[in-house]
């Protein structure tokens, strides 16, 4: 059954924006039962006169600008008790006929959904909003995915901390329980305030996916030459009074001190950033300390740059997510070391580091055996890592550079990734005339290593094109796009602690070929990809002291050729495997899943 909806629009000058906004509403909206309530906040540019001529809108006129919150409340008060309410800024252009039906279906999709925001883009095409959150210490509102290139990230309905009220659907029962907007806020912060109150009242706040609306942000402020900062600062002071204590001291279900790195260009830092963010949104309070004692520079991520300033408490569970030889720096309450090593054993310093902890977590099951075999005696628990399924999914926009069947490999150049095996297999298997392409997105930070010279030294036979993208430095939010620009991911690695690129490719719906040993063996199997046979376990020869005396897996070159040929010969089967992989990753391996598992254990440890 369709619930009637009142769309409340607040205007304060900017007539041309209002005209375009209402025209788009009238022309596009396919919902059968909606009406328009316009509250004018003392416009002087002809807006009121124009609105008076509109016979399909209920017009409420304020003689002066009462502020956004009061105007909205006046509009809501004019709606019927049987109507749900949509708040829509007059600088928003809806672009999809089903926008209102879609918001309503999300809002009534579950008994606890109360507030539904929308995906918004800027007129320039950048993402503006897929949800929002409040920085816990500096108390500044941040929009998720703000100013990122729109590659269809976060395109599904997702629970979020808050949404902006430029376009929002408020269910009537939520409005009745939570009450109107807080009029202490003239403008700004009133949306976060409402969302937090709704969450405390037991309602979920959701950002709906689907085609985005276009939002010309801050139009009223700009058009009316409002002193933005004075309004913002006043509202922030109100918000601080109401919420600062709750946000920092009461909202969390538990607390943990996180010993890791956030900024260095290494795998631990990339995963640590995702983990701290996921733990924060899972309502676990995270204090931070650099695992190696280094000063922490800004990451550019507003949430993380707030968290690093939070004092690290010694009396809560301590998780060290770093190399095990740094575990000895950790003191205080129950200590957990979370680490990995991609060879068959651990060096003595790592064994000592692990045994100094109360328990050790490893991402992949093979490390239980290798750690135990090296002399780790404390309990070892498998705690898998994850992937951001908002940014890695099959609907991400790809930008194919060629119609050729495209293999992609993403890795840091080095012996462990077996680039020679990959290049030889490709060059030996495919003739020059075949319609295939190998795309190598390679990072190399070692100035002593000349990647091009090493490739030349392989003396490859004539083959189809191999395109080398060296240190391209892709924007992190666009990595999914890189995967979606190819047909198949391939990584004949000799060992992975976890295998993040393999999992990311699978999440994007790509069939993946990767060595069936170490991290990837935990999530890559025949039904969802192409596990690559191991030819033999061989000494791990590389420029890394931790590997000395241990072995890793030598991928089977002939089997790699066979698998690459198989996906080219039967691309439809490969595509189906890729889609199955994406479904499995979404169901099991999101950062949200990881955060819940970590949180559960932290609470068991007394966090």
């Amino acid at each position, binding site marked *: 059954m369709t619930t009637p909806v009142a769309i409340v629009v607040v205007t304060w000058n900017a007539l041309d924006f209002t005209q375009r906004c209402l025209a788009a509403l009238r022309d596009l909206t396919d919902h059968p039962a909606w009406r328009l309530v316009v509250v004018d906040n003392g416009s002087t540019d002809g807006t009121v006169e124009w609105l008076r001529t509109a016979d399909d809108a209920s017009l409420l006129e304020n003689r002066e600008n009462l502020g956004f919150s009061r105007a909205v409340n006046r509009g809501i008060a004019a709606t019927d008790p049987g109507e749900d309410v949509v708040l829509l800024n007059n600088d928003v252009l809806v672009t999809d006929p089903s926008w209102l039906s879609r918001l309503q279906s999300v809002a009534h999709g579950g008994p606890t959904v109360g507030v539904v925001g929308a995906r918004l883009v800027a007129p320039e095409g950048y993402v503006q909003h897929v949800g929002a959150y409040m920085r816990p210490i500096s108390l500044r509102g941040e929009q998720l995915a703000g100013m990122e*290139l729109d*590659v269809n990230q976060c395109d599904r309905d997702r629970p979020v901390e808050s949404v902006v009220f430029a376009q929002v659907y408020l269910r009537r029962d939520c409005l009745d329980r939570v009450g109107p907007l807080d009029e202490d806020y003239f403008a700004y912060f009133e949306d976060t305030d409402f969302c937090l109150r709704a969450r405390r009242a037991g309602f979920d706040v959701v950002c709906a996916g689907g085609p985005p609306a276009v939002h010309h942000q801050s139009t009223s402020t700009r058009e009316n030459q409002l002193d933005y900062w004075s309004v913002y600062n006043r509202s922030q002071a109100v918000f601080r009074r109401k919420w600062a204590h709750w946000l920092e001291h009461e909202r969390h279900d538990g607390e943990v001190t996180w010993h890791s790195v956030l900024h260095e260009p290494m795998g631990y830092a990339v995963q640590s950033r995702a983990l701290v963010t996921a733990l924060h949104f899972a309502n676990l309070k995270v204090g931070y300390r650099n695992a190696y004692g280094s000063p922490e520079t800004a990451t550019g991520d507003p949430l993380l740059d707030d968290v690093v300033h939070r004092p690290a408490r010694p009396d809560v569970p301590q998780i060290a997510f770093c190399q095990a030889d740094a575990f000895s720096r950790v003191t205080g309450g129950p200590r957990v070391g979370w680490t990995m090593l991609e060879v068959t054993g651990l060096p003595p310093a790592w064994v000592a580091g692990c045994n100094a902890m109360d328990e050790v977590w490893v991402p992949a099951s093979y490390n239980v055996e290798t750690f135990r075999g090296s002399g780790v005696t404390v309990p070892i628990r498998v705690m898998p890592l994850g992937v951001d399924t908002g940014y890695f999914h099959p609907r991400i926009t790809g*930008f*194919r*550079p*060629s119609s050729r069947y495209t293999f992609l490999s993403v890795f840091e150049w080095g012996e462990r990734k077996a680039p020679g095996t990959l290049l030889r297999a490709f060059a030996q298997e495919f003739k*020059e005339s075949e319609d295939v*392409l190998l*795309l190598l997105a390679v990072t190399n930070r070692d100035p002593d290593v000349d990647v*091009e010279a090493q*490739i*030349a030294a392989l003396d*490859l036979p*004539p*083959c*189809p*094109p*191999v*395109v*080398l*993208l*060296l*240190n*391209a*430095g*892709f*924007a*992190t939010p*666009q*990595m999914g*796009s*890189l995967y979606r*620009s190819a047909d198949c991911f391939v990584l004949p690695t000799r060992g992975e602690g976890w295998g993040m690129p393999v999992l990311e490719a699978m999440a994007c719906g790509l069939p993946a070929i990767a060595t069936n040993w170490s991290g990837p063996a935990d999530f890559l199997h025949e039904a969802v990809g192409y596990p690559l046979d191991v030819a033999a376990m061989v000494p791990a020869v590389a420029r890394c002291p931790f590997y000395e005396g241990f072995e890793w897996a030598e991928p089977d070159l002939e089997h790699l050729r066979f698998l690459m040929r198989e996906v080219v010969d039967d691309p439809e089967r490969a595509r189906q495997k890729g889609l199955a992989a994406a479904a499995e990753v979404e169901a099991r391996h999101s950062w949200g899943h990881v955060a819940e598992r970590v949180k559960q254990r932290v609470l068991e440890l007394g966090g």
Partner: protein
Amino acid sequence: MLRDTDVPTMMMRVEATLDAAARSPHGANGVLKVANEGDHHLNVGRTRQLAAIELEFPAGSDRAVVGRAIALAKRGLRRSLRWYVTPMIQQQTRFNHAAVDLFEGLRLSLDRLSRRIDALQQPSAVAAADLLAGCTTIVDIDLDPIDAVEGGSADGVQIDARTGDPHAVAALIESAFAALAPGGRIAILTTTDAAPVPPAAVAWAAEAAGFTQVRQQPVAPPVITPSPTASLAENLDRVVHQLSAPRTTAVVATKPRMLRP
């Protein structure tokens, strides 16, 4: 300041690299490196390195006695002005990067346009009958030299050069040159099923004979459409014939109005 690369931009570079390689004598194969920015004509990467303005310089002085005090004063002065200078430097750096982004965007657009022009300049196939469009007196010859035409009276000569003998083709071209009026045109057809003299060699022979405006032109095979009244087998034969028809390239050239002395 580190700059992140947009995937669509990089994929455009990959496309351009593959396309350029395909047009090269070696073709699109083997290892091809894609520059992160710019190319060997327009080195945008070098400009990018200059975009970020350095704010911090080591403060020092080579004065023997007062050097330390001068360095200290410099350091103090710079620190005291940092609040004022930093936002301007950041603004200028942002502008520089935006300008370099624009250069790179323009370079990529230029590259794409060049490739488009190249593609447009590839002659499209025309019907054999259209090769000498506009000519009124056309002599159609096979392998016999032209002797029935009064010298310099024809304005079009079409030669079906179904021979692999370059001497015979050269004789035909010379004969046609004599038969054509100044400004007249010649079309020499070379068809793949006849193991012809390669079109490039025919073009060279035409130039050697004195023709100008020499170009190679693919010739579309005659279109044979299935007939609603024919049997399925006959129609299949027509389709197969259409698909497997020999490919013809014509060398088209013009006899100059002003002959070289």
